[in-house]
């Protein structure tokens, strides 16, 4: 579907509320009820630094435990993501709904271990040992797309999906089961999802001077 151009007169000044927006990702909280072995939280902040362009920062932590018959796996760490989002839908003055894509870079610092590890042996008897803890810092790139809606003045709800491309996973043994912020490490690509509620502190008013855009009617008159 083609989106019509938004005609404006030359020299029009558009007043738009700006400011830093702080949000909380609800997915870790909802996920906890479905998979109690993982606890986590994630917060986000973003600000429009240019018309339609947003600087974004996400931070979070994960505490993951996996209990199996022969071992118990622990993973605990933090992650940080920075990037930019771009709104690709024209907006009227005062409108804060956006549909966006984005690109980001992320890293995580975490420690993981397996303790206890039981080595089964029917002949000589079982052996109980442990592995780790091992500290790691992987990096990955994220592509994102999503929407955000202003539910009430300065209160926003939004979601976005992410495709994550793991750049580097350290060689340390053992390979982690999960990387905080990235997800399960079976593949070098993972998919993520955020559902955020956020509040904007409207301390700034942006004044944007739009250049004249010729409408189709004006073209025809010529």
């Amino acid at each position, binding site marked *: 579907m083609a989106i019509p151009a*938004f005609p404006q007169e030359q020299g029009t000044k558009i007043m738009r509320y700006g400011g830093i927006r702080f949000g909380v990702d609800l*997915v870790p909280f*909802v*996920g906890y009820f*479905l*998979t109690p072995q993982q606890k986590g939280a994630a917060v986000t902040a973003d600000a429009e630094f240019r018309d339609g362009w947003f600087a974004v920062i996400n931070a979070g932590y994960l505490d993951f435990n*996996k209990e*199996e*018959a*022969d*071992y118990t*796996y622990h993973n605990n760490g933090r992650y940080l993501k920075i990037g930019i989002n771009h709104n690709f*839908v*024209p*907006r*009227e003055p005062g*409108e804060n*709904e956006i*549909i966006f894509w984005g690109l980001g870079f992320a890293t995580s610092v975490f420690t993981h271990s*397996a303790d206890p*590890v039981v*080595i089964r*042996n*029917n*002949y*000589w*008897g*079982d*052996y109980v*040992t442990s*592995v780790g803890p091992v500290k790691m810092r992987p990096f990955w790139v994220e592509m994102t797309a999503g*929407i*955000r*809606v202003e539910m009430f003045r300065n209160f926003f*709800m*939004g*979601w976005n999906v992410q495709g994550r491309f793991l750049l580097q996973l350290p060689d340390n*043994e*053992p*390979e982690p*089961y999960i990387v905080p912020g990235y997800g399960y490490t079976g593949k070098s690509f993972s998919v993520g*999802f955020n*559902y955020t509620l956020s509040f904007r502190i409207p301390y700034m008013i942006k004044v944007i001077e739009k250049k004249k855009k010729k409408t189709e009617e004006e073209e025809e008159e010529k």
Partner: protein
Amino acid sequence: MKNIKNAVSDISTGFSLVLIVFLMTTGCQHAPKCLEPYDVYLHARFVTLAGTQEKDTLLMNADIYGIDREDSLITAGKESFSKIDFPPDPNRDYCSFVFRYNELSDTLVFSYLRSVRLLSYECGFIQEYENLGVEYTMHQIDSIAVVDTLVSNKDDENIKIYLFRH
């Protein structure tokens, strides 16, 4: 541009429902099963030399048991065999076995370095044994050749036990 706002709101509502279904199905997923072999044995083969020719030797009524485990034969239920799997002791850096055949006994002492390795998170961890070495008495045993110094969950042969020809 009210239409955009409405459309965005509609998409959000729809996606919220999709999210709930997604999370519920994700939470109900079953873990994949372990398809890799889990057991770790030291694989041995008995051979004799006929000139320069190496020949598998079928042993009848031979017994093998671990020292301090006289009550538990690793050859139990086997009337004849030419290959045997020795279970390494995961609690120590060595293990010893007695090989009894033709009313004569030999002792084998295996030494190694233990290391725990993650097989996969579905299968769990296994203990491997590196730098395999062996010492032995020579009543029935002529010599032992270490073919592969890594004892793992693979089926690769680790040692060949050369017996005296009778």
